[in-house]
């Protein structure tokens, strides 16, 4: 398995799941519209008949914003809760969909159905929510590490009479924090994939195992992630160039810009799905041997809010696990997983086989 192969296969998987892609794209538009609608109404009320609107059509006037906020006072900020609610709901919805998306991508022959998708969404939501909380904590630690570096730099150069050492260090610090955040993002992507593929409720263990997985296969995991990241950067660059070149001085051209913008948004959704699809391919190919999995310590976790009770052995004896069938080898796998029954995961070496 190479990273390019993983990305290419992932792209095929995303394309086969075009209905999911469409659904997420439309939902993204819907959420953005809900968030922006109150602002658009306020804009229309203030500028709908104003000649200033025509004047500002070419170059946005910062003075209008100051004037507007001064005239409307706190009323404008009343829409802040709507914006925050939209963001939180969208995050939860994305978490919900991740379970379904990865479930589909985990089905090797690409025969996943809508039922598989929705089942994956529902079954994994609370687990992935816990992964999300772990990830937020990890991101916060990463940012704190960045702040710590900044504080150290201030201690070393902060009282100096030259600015450039701090600025140059600031670039390195920012690069470090960004790389750390990307690494965490990748680790938590694998944690999500593991939770879904292994059908496990043990999210903390999944995070630790995915961490080990990433570093055990550091070349493949980082290059796959990097390839998709590069693709998203290229897309952004193409959009930036195109957007800068397009004039916006007529209704027709505004419609053209609207189409370009929404195509770009659709492609961003596609790229986000590609992250999961490509990394799921990698995970399936490089999945750790069950015995190694079983030897890792088990972390007990609280039950999900759904009220399900899971009685999981604190640790399975390696010799006992070694005697099971591949699908049953995972110590934290739930035996009645319908998806696994229909589409049992192939062993690691089988993942290299060409797709049907």
């Amino acid at each position, binding site marked *: 398995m190479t990273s390019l192969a993983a990305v290419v296969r992932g792209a095929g998987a995303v394309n086969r799941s075009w209905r999911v892609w469409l659904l997420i794209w439309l939902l993204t*538009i819907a*959420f*953005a*519209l809900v*968030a*922006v609608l109150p*602002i*658009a109404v306020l*804009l*229309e009320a203030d*500028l*709908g*008949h*104003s*000649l*200033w*609107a025509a004047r*500002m*059509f070419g*170059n*946005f*006037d*910062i*003075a*209008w*914003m*100051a*004037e507007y*906020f*001064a*005239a409307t006072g706190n009323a404008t900020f009343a829409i802040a809760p709507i914006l925050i609610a*939209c*963001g939180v709901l*969208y*995050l939860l919805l*994305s978490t919900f969909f991740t379970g379904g998306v990865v479930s589909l991508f985990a089905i090797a022959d690409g025969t996943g159905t809508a039922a598989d998708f929705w089942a994956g969404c529902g079954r994994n939501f609370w687990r992935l929510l816990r992964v*999300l909380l772990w*990830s*937020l904590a990890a*991101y916060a630690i990463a940012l704190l590490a960045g702040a710590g570096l900044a504080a150290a730099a201030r201690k070393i150069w*902060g*009282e*100096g*009479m*030259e*600015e450039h050492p*701090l*600025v140059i260090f*600031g*670039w390195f610090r920012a690069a470090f924090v960004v790389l750390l955040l990307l690494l965490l*993002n990748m680790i938590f992507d694998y944690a999500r994939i593991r939770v879904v593929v292994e059908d496990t409720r043990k999210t903390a263990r999944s995070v630790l195992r995915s961490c080990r997985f990433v570093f055990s296969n550091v070349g493949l995991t980082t290059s796959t992630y990097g390839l998709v990241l590069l693709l998203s950067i290229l897309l952004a660059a193409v959009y930036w160039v195109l957007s*800068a070149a397009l004039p916006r001085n*007529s*209704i027709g051209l*505004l419609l053209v*810009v*609207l189409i370009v*913008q929404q195509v770009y*948004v659709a492609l961003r*959704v596609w790229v986000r799905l590609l992250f999961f699809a490509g990394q799921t391919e990698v995970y399936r190919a490089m999945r750790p041997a069950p015995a190694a999995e079983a030897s890792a310590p088990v972390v007990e976790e609280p039950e999900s809010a759904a009220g399900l009770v899971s009685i999981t052995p604190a640790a399975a004896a390696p010799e006992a696990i070694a005697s099971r069938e591949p699908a049953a080898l995972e110590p934290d796998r739930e035996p009645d997983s319908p998806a696994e029954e229909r589409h049992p995961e192939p062993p690691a070496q089988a993942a290299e086989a060409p797709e049907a």
Partner: protein
Amino acid sequence: MRALSIFLLAAAAAFAADGRNIVDYRISAKLVPKDHAVEGHETLIWHNVSKDEIRELQFHLYMNAFRDAKSTFVREGGRADSRLKDNGWGHIDVKRLEIAGGADLTPAIKFIHPDDDNADDRTVISVALPQPVRAGGSITLDIDFYTKLPHVVARTGYHGTFYMVAQWFPKIGVWETAGDRYSTAGHWNCHQFHAHSEFYADYGRFDVSITTPSEYVVGATGVEQETKAGALPGTATHRFVQADVHEFAWTAQPTCLRITRTFDPAREVTPAELADTARLLGLPQSEVRLTPVEMIILLQPEHAAQTERQFRALRTGIKYFGLWYGAYPYKTITLVDPPHNGMQAGGMEYPTLITGGTSWLDDPYVHSPEGVIVHEFGHQFWYGLVGNNEFEESWLDEGFNTYSTDTILDLAYGAQRLPFRLLSVPLTRFVASPFAPQMDLNRAAYVVDPKVDEMVRNAWQYYSGMSYGVNSYVRPGITLTTLGNILGRQTMARVMRTYHQRWRYRHPTSLDFLKVVNEVSGRDMKWFFDQFVFGSNVVDYGVSDITSEKPEGKKEYESKVRVRRYGEAIVPVELRVRFTDGKFVNREWDGRYRWADFKFTGPAAVAAATVDPDRKILLDVRYANNGRTMKPQARPVMKWTENLVFWAEQLLLAVASIA
């Protein structure tokens, strides 16, 4: 010999009587870097040019604002950062104060608090005299003082080996006799140092010798006369002299670069510019001709790449301020570029010495450091040459200078984009941020809270620090621009020139400016000053409604435009009505009553109507209601909505990337 003495005394008295030479300071100062301190001896000759007998003297000890947290400066919320509080406090002690060859006045020193009841504030002292100073007489004082500099704060202090030494010596207040400014009886005008105020002093001559370690590069107010070896080995003494100024500041740093150039009027001002300016001002060209100036920049080594930018900004200031208000009369101008962490010394003005401010990576698309340099140079004219009381009428220097600076920046550099930086890297070019002319930015700051204060007010008595800023800088800037739009460009140019020339080396008030406005324009503009300088009412005119219909059986449209006055202030405004056939009609409205209807009959319906269509009244707090169209404006709202949706989508997708 006696005849010569009488002649010299008479000459000195006559010289002092014009108000330009009330003080004569001779100071010897020694910088003690290990203590961040200055040991000084001051000989002050003070001339009593009033008709009063002076029985006491008052002095500013500005540096005591940084003595501790009890000073009025700190209590009012002045900038006292942790460095200051940890170990960087500063103070000034008067060790000895005596009449030259006479009585020791040191025991008579009393701390007074003319502005508040803060007994812990030590920024003003009073000294009772054993003998009064007669009208037309003078007194010579010998003063020993010790100034511990603070970690750089509020325009003065040290950081590392950088020293900006300002407000550093015992400085006599201003005796205002009856008839001076707003005075009805003689009194000392000697305010405490406040968090939001600057300074006020009489003109005179400074002769200052500064001793520093010999490796230090020194810059100061005035012309450097000589540099010689100091009394102690490894030290050097620099002597600076300047007449016709009311302050003296200096700087020292061993590592800065000293670069000099000459402002050459023949190269900087074209004959056409000279002719245009002379025509605009109604003066012969000989009166608007400029003189050479030696420009000295003390630059941080890490800003060496910005040398040309900084010199160009200085040349721009010397050229336009000189052409508009009169040639810069001094021989030198020194620009100090403070180091990183020394920016509290940046953006400040002293006679013939200003401080700028820039960052390591400069942005070619943003007018910084130009904005700071042109503004601080402008203070040579508004504060330096026209010496208003900054404590009591800060708009007369900061506001006049904002008006002048921003006009010059837009003229010389064009509108700038709003700056954008990421990790200190200027990215303005790449994000294509909106253009923002200086006066638009000023107006944006003003409209946020336009009624909170009247413009003319004691600087420490504004509602807040923000209000001090708005009412001292940006509001006067747009008020003067509005006044200029009402009077016309030529009249306004002549008003400003006349006011500047008439009040050079003197202390004018807002009323003095009003007198010049009325005199030069030939109009009574008291109504304008009452509302916008001495009042806090706001202007807000708008078009509230347009109707246009063709009655049955008639061939012409009957249209009506209703205009309203939403604000309290009254200004005559213009109404411009555009019809669907592209024709325009202009109407004048006195703007007095709360609303008015304007009716039109013609072959075309009204398409749009605008009050103040040329935006002459920058003080109008709501432009959005000034112009109204018959049909809704779909395109702009659509454009912004589609952009907002796009950016909301980007934000949502960014959020989703962690899920």
